[in-house]
């Protein structure tokens, strides 16, 4: 207890003497913790607890049978003929758009007649209208009616309502027959009879997935092998939920990178805590000496300052938790949109603030605080008794070893450069991350030398330019070199992150834009209405391409078809194009550099494919390799003739000739159409004609320009969260600067008071503090820019490449960087406003005679 009292008197109470500074520090930690927590929670909701929307109504099975493009119904028959008590549930799984809300819903077709009774009794469907019991005939009629649907409660409709659903390119009027019981996953599902679903989707004779429930205590792996042997080669038997697992795996890299970005704000916070504790150690040197002289041990001194850090960390974390929860709601929307457009259809789950994530946030806050306080607290421990006698006439100037630190910086930098050259580890760019950490550390060590050098230059130049206030400001920064260096390091880290991510995103964007320009040779593109997603491939009615091709202004129509497949345990997209309608591409996008016509010519009628760069990178395949693909019930080998650049999706693409694909998967419906307008024909006119021909189909028509715009829009949305993270890191740093400047003002109050005696106007004092803020901002921008450049190289060429497999061309987004740096600079200067006011309001009479 006496210890606690002492701790309160000597450590806690002084903190409250500068409430604004205390608040800024705690808030900085809180923001750091909040961001980490928010990204963690949002990631969990949007991707981490990823649960395919197709898993609705699929619980409790052991195996699933799938085939790219759908398994033929004969497979169901084969399974049903087995002399074992297997429960077999064939399903259609696709999507429908609710035309009221434009929301995309999972559409599931089940054999309701065959297992309706079981399903009804097990899950309680139709339980609510069991009171006004229908006749059996009526029920069966309803089940057979192709318009009948059953919906999840989240749609807010009741039995008897009509619902217009967009399925592929057609709107279908459906009648709600019942509301499904509330499922835990908060999903929106439309349930249909399987035959009705096949009809609605225009996919006769195939089912998307067959779920199998094995007898009790059966060995799943044994059964998997046994059933695989029974079924055609292309059909895969795997544990239920394997697809979900694959998707989760695919999302892992995305989450990893976001999570790491979220830690940057915390790193900035760590610098600030280090600074806060250093300041309090330096300030209280005489006090420490006195306390030691009257009986405190070294360890108690250490514990006291670590305790201060724990208090800051804990307070920050406690505020950070609710803040993080709030931020997560915003983040989850952005993340879900990105997951949808780049990876896989999903519906973000509810944000769950579990005790474990709260505990993690607290641990992170306190852990970071203690870790960053260790070194200054150890320094406090070293304070000798004689320091107590040092009558504080001259301020103790924290020791710095510029030269030694510079050598450490060089070594760390070299290690970082080395790490950047290492290959991916376990599919993750571990060494890339290590390289960024090493470079940030190197920059922190190089900071004292830089600050010293620049502030000396500045003292000369600025003194002439901005007057004596600037001279005083730069001198005072150089005098408290260590403090200044830590502050600059904190802000520089935030700036570096902003610059590096800015360059990475800017380069990426430029690369995508350039690629799009080569990529879209046709004039108009058509796809079914509804939000696009990486794994949804709704089809266009078969007859439509012919009708459009017959239009006078149309030179040719290319039919594209995409299927969602799984290759080597990773989701991928299999696509075909009609090579008879080949048009010249502007530039070669092929790794071989050969012209498109030559490469695509090799695909004609052959078992040859081209694959996208991410596919090649993920599966370690290159031109000349042979890959085995499952197509429907078949399994066939294809030779990769080339690899092409593709930035549209991170999931790998495999592209082949339409005729070849049709041999295996005879469904002729295309998913996209590319329309080539006849020379000297007005594109808008053709667009109108297509609209007329396509009346009755829900088709969206895009010009190449629209598509480019759309791609850029998706791109920007994808990176919106990155920008938000950067902004938080910068805010944390700027708050830290404000807090540190207040501390600097307090510690220099005697000097500031003296200046008033020497004839300084309050305006001059204010200007001096603002120049200090400006100098800090300038130093941080300079250092941050340099560090950011090197980090961007790692991001572009190491981390991005190793995480996603994209090759990005380096590009300076000048305007963005200039704008961002200006904003940071202004923010830093603005952060000096309050400390400047504090400085100007100091009563010179009071401070001049203080010891």
């Amino acid at each position, binding site marked *: 207890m006496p210890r606690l009292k002492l701790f309160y008197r000597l450590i806690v109470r002084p903190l409250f003497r500068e409430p604004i500074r205390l608040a800024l520090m705690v808030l900085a930690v809180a923001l750091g913790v909040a961001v980490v927590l928010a990204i963690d929670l949002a990631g969990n909701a949007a991707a981490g607890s990823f649960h395919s929307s197709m898993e609705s109504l699929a619980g409790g099975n052991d195996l699933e049978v799938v085939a790219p493009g759908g398994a033929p119904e004969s497979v169901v028959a084969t399974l049903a003929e087995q002399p074992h008590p297997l429960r077999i549930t064939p399903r259609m799984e696709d999507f429908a758009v609710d035309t009221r809300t434009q929301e995309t819903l999972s559409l599931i077709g089940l054999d309701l007649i065959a297992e309706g009774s079981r399903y009804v009794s097990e899950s309680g469907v139709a339980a609510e209208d069991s009171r006004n019991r229908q006749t059996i005939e009526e029920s069966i009629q309803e089940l057979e009616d192709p318009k009948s649907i059953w919906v999840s409660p989240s749609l807010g409709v009741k039995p008897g309502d009509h619902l217009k659903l967009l399925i592929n390119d057609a709107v279908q009027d459906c009648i709600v027959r019942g509301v499904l019981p509330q499922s835990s996953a908060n999903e929106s599902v439309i349930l249909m009879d399987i035959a009705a679903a096949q009809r609605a989707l225009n996919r006769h004779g195939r089912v998307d997935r067959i779920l199998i429930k094995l007898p009790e205590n059966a060995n799943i792996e044994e059964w998997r092998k046994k059933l695989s042997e029974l079924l055609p080669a292309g059909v895969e038997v795997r544990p239920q939920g394997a697809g979900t697992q694959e998707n989760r795996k695919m999302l892992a890299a995305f989450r990893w990178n976001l999570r790491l970005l979220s830690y940057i704000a915390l790193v900035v916070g760590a610098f600030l805590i280090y600074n806060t504790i250093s300041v309090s150690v330096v300030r209280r040197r005489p006090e420490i000496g006195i306390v030691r002289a009257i009986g405190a041990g070294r360890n108690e001194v250490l514990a006291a300052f670590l305790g201060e850090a724990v208090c800051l960390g804990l307070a920050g974390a406690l505020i950070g938790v609710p803040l993080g929860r709030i931020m997560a709601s915003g983040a989850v929307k952005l993340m879900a949109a990105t997951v949808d457009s780049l990876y896989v259809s999903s519906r973000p789950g509810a944000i769950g603030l579990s005790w474990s994530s709260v505990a993690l946030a607290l641990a992170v806050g306190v852990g970071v605080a203690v870790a960053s306080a260790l070194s200054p607290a150890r320094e406090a421990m070293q304070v000798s008794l004689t320091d107590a006698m040092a009558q504080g006439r001259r301020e103790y100037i924290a020791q710095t070893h510029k030269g030694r630190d510079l050598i450490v910086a060089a070594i760390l930098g070299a290690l970082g450069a080395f790490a950047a050259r290492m290959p991916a580890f376990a599919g993750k760019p571990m060494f890339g991350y290590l390289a960024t950490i090493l470079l940030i550390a190197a920059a922190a060590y190089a900071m004292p030398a830089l600050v010293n050098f620049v502030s000396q230059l500045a003292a000369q130049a600025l003194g002439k330019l901005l007057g004596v206030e600037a001279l005083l400001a730069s001198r005072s920064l150089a005098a408290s070199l260590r403090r200044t260096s830590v502050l600059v390091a904190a802000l520089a880290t935030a700036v570096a992150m902003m610059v590096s991510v800015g360059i990475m995103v800017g380069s990426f964007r430029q690369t995508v834009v350039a690629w799009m320009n080569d990529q879209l040779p046709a004039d108009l593109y058509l796809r079914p209405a509804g939000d696009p997603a990486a794994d949804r491939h709704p089809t266009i009615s078969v007859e439509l391409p012919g009708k459009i091709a017959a239009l006078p202004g149309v030179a040719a129509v290319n039919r594209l078809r995409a299927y969602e497949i799984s290759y080597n345990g990773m989701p991928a997209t299999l696509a075909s194009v009609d090579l008879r309608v080949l048009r010249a591409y502007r530039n070669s996008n092929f790794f071989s550099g050969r012209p498109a016509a030559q490469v695509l010519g090799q695909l004609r009628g052959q078992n040859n494919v081209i694959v996208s760069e991410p596919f090649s990178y993920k599966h370690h395949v290159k031109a000349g390799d042979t890959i085995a693909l499952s197509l429907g019930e078949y399994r066939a080998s294809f030779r990769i003739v080339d690899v092409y650049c593709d930035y549209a999706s991170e999931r790998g693409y495999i592209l082949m000739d339409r005729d070849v694909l049709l041999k295996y998967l005879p469904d002729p419906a295309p998913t996209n159409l590319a329309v080539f307008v006849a020379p000297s024909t007005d594109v808008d006119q053709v667009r109108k004609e297509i609209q007329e021909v396509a009346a009755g189909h829900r088709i969206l028509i895009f010009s190449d320009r629209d598509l480019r715009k759309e791609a850029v829009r998706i791109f920007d949305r994808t990176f919106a969260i990155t920008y938000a993270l950067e902004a938080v890191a910068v805010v944390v740093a700027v708050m830290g600067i404000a807090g540190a400047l207040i501390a600097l003002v307090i510690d220099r109050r*005697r*000097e500031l008071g003296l200046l008033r005696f020497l004839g300084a106007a309050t305006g001059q004092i204010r200007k001096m503090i603002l120049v200090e803020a400006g100098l800090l901002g300038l130093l941080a921008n300079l250092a941050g820019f340099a560090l950011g450049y090197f980090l961007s190289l790692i991001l572009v060429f190491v981390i991005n490449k190793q995480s996603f497999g994209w090759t990005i061309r380096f590009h300076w987004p000048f305007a963005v960087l200039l704008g961002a740096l200006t904003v940071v600079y202004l923010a830093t200067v603005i952060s000096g406003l309050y400390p400047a006011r504090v400085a100007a309001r100091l009563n010179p009479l009071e401070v001049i005679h203080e010891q």
Partner: protein
Amino acid sequence: MENDDLPEERAAVRRMAILSLQAVTKEYASEGQCVRALDGVSLEVSAGEFVALVGRSGCGKSTLLHVAGAMDFPSTGLVLIGDKNTSALNDAQQTELRREKVGFVFQSFQLLHTLTVQENVELPLLLAGNPAAREAALERLHWVDLDGLGARYPHQLSGGQMQRVAIARALAHSPRILLADEPTGNLDSTTGAAILDLLVRLTRERKTATIMATHSPEAAAVCDTLVRMRDGRIEEITRR
């Protein structure tokens, strides 16, 4: 006024008060209680006059200096510097007045450790926007016999040297009024005596009106005017 020491001129100068305190009281309200630090103080100081301010600790010496230097303002009464009433000025005008007319010297020197000796001396001129700071500083350092030490930092000087720098700095802008608050208090007696001599000499040479708060008995011997204070009042003024 370069050729001095004509008796009638000295008398005229004495009559021309540069600094005049008229029935000044200064009250501090601290913790509900009212402390009267100055209580009806009247004092006139003219160019070239060296005033020693003595009295027990807490009698109001520092307060008087602050009020006289327009760093603080009387609760009632008047402080005139030249013909300006310090209480009637706004913040900018007060600063202006201090810049032109007042120099301060402190017991604990109060040099800026981040600046060199010369830069410390230049400081008041630079703050006032005077471009010829360099030359003036060199000259002031010469006045206080510190030629050649301009490039040093304060911590490379002795206490006496530091106080000389502080005096040079206080005189940098040729103030009419020099206020020194126990300038010898932190020095040994020999050094203290040297500083006292220096202040007297400069007061004569530069025709400043100097008020020095002090506990040192030597000061009483060399001053033109001895002001003895007690409990915020002037107990006795001895002119010679």
